[in-house]
């Protein structure tokens, strides 16, 4: 009897703290949503759809982000695994060099990357931004994912070796499934950054038909000396652009939870 009451109180406390935190964290976002339907209500949204053919840009964004996630998965996961679980000469120095990738400020990247992309012959296509986004995401998340592998027990690996399996088998069938939450987290972050990026996209792609959706809101943003569109239309455009992120997040966090139950069984 006494114990039940205690549990209830702590649950009540937890909920209060969480709700309070959510209110604080959500206030600016709610403000944005409210602004996006100001004055003309959902007319702001129709105005965005009327002004641009968003479907093409949305398609481009999905293509770009999808390819980035694919590359990140194929490139980052094995690298993080190797740095965490395998021994080879120059491991630490390679790791350190790769980490340098996350230290460059984006402003310093634009022109040199432009030249590289031009040389490869990708300039102007949607794929011009895919590789830069992918490698930047890889560098940015390498440490995170490597650390996640670190926290997985080595014993499972040894069990594979005893069974006669090699590193590839250990990676693909033992470690990767266990690293699901870490990988899901990395993919969420990569999705977010490549979905929202616009500096490189605008510089590398000049054809409107090939631009991702992230560049749309700036068409509605007031610029020096001109305020063509009311702020609320820009907010409507922003909400439209950000919605897919929320959807992806919910989708990806499912994988995380799935990892939780699996990890509990195996770990």
């Amino acid at each position, binding site marked *: 009897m006494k114990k039940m009451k205690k549990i209830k109180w702590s649950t009540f406390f937890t909920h209060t703290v969480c709700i309070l935190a959510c209110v604080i964290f959500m206030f600016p976002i709610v403000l944005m949503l409210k602004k996006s339907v100001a004055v003309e209500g959902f007319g702001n949204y129709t105005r965005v759809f009327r002004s641009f053919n968003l479907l093409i840009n949305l398609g481009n964004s999905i293509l770009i982000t999808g390819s980035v996630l694919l590359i990140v998965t194929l490139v980052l996961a094995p690298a993080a695994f190797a740095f965490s679980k395998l021994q080879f000469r120059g491991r630490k120095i390679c790791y350190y060099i790769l980490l340098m990738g996350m230290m460059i400020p984006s402003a310093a990247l634009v022109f040199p990357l432009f030249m590289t992309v031009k040389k490869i012959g990708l300039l102007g296509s949607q794929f011009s931004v895919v590789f830069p986004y992918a490698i930047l995401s890889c560098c940015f998340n390498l440490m995170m994912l490597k650390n996640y592998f670190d926290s997985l027990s080595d014993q499972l690996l040894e069990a594979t070796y005893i069974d006669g399996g090699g590193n590839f088998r250990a990676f693909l069938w033992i470690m990767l499934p266990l690293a699901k939450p870490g990988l899901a987290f990395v993919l969420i972050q990569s999705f977010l950054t490549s979905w929202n990026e616009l500096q490189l996209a605008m*510089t590398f792609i000049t054809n409107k*038909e090939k631009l991702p959706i992230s560049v749309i809101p700036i068409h509605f*943003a007031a610029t020096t000396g001109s305020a063509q569109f009311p702020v609320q239309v820009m907010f409507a455009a922003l909400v439209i652009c950000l919605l897919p992120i929320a959807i992806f997040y919910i989708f990806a966090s499912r994988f995380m939870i799935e990892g939780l139950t699996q990890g509990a069984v195996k770990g």
Partner: protein
Amino acid sequence: MKKIICTLLTASLCTASLTGAGCMTVFAQENEGEKTVVTFQTWNPADSGEGSPIYQIIDAFEEENPDIEINYVYVGSGSHLDQLRVGLMGGEGPDVYGMSAGSAYSEFRDFEEDLTSYCQESWGENWEDKFLDFCMDIVKDEDGAVYGVPLGLTYAGYAWADTNMLADYGLSVPTSYAELKEAAKTLREQNQFPMAIGAKDTWLNLDCWMSMAADIDAEALYAAINGEKSFTDPELLESFTLWQDLFNNGVFQDGAVGMTLYNDVNDMFQREGSIPMFMNGSWAMNMYTLNDEETRSNFNGENSDHDIFLIDWNDDGQVCPVTASVDVILCMNPESEVKEAAFKWMDYLVNEGQDLLVNGYLEYMPSRADMELNVSGLSEDGQKNLEYIIQNGTDNVAGIRGIENAELSTVICDMLTALAINEVTPEDAAAQIQAVSESVR
């Protein structure tokens, strides 16, 4: 895990094939006929969706020149120069591009074609008469060569007022600094904004200060900018003191350096109609032509009455002069392979194009001397303000807006902010500006 990869693979493959199909149709269209494609990149005239004035101009041009196609690339003002620079240096620059007046125009010189001969060929020997004198001053270099053609003209130094709202507070539009101080006091007592300024935008501070300094002594101001006079001289010192006072005696709103003109302050005036006065230039005339519900009802509603006005900052009985600059300088990429077609487009844009931009949308004042100003559908109130701008444009211009030298311009902007938040005295500010002014000569 496999599920993630499978989903991702299918998703990206699907979209790849979708967009692939999209690309093909685009290519198919492009291949019809052998058209010369001119790429035009700018932040202004802006792309405001279908039916924007720029698309009307392009359509009309392409109809007249069926062999030329304009590939218009709009980039927001925030990243236009950066992108332009990358494109030009990487050998992938546009054929024609918009450039802002000031330091960037001269810094980009290596990538600006000398247009003197093109202008002569297309417009005759006396082509310079086509444009207003000081538009030519802005686009010419020391040797008289022209690297860009001016599109649109802008005057800075103005303030705007909502006369009806002022009347509600028992006020009329202030004309002198003394009146403005009184008005600000009355407004503040009733919890209203005094004169509003978006002082986070340092370019606006520079605009306002220049017209104040010009009101005190225009000759001294430009002499100092050209390095022929010290910024510590009394005429200029007075302007810095005046600027600081405006923040200290409450003429400008509290926390002014935390607000931008676009959108913070502008929205309050243009759309909400919730403040009586703000500092903004002649380009704000497009408030009369914008088509969104709020702006329309605020500016073209029944009885709405707004005034663009100038203030007599030094109380000598004469309102301050304005400064003027070119809105967009159209430049040509020397590496362009379609220079002839490119200039045809530039020609069309400053002539027929400007007609539409000015008379249809009041985006700017005309840069051409030979252009007839006949704005369609402007309300009586708007017409009155337009005439005021034109009047001052003919007899009350102090000189060129802005400062060409980047270092000098930046240090003045920095000091104006520092003065506004009382982190520096007018004397110190003047001395620091003078030090930079001397170091860059």
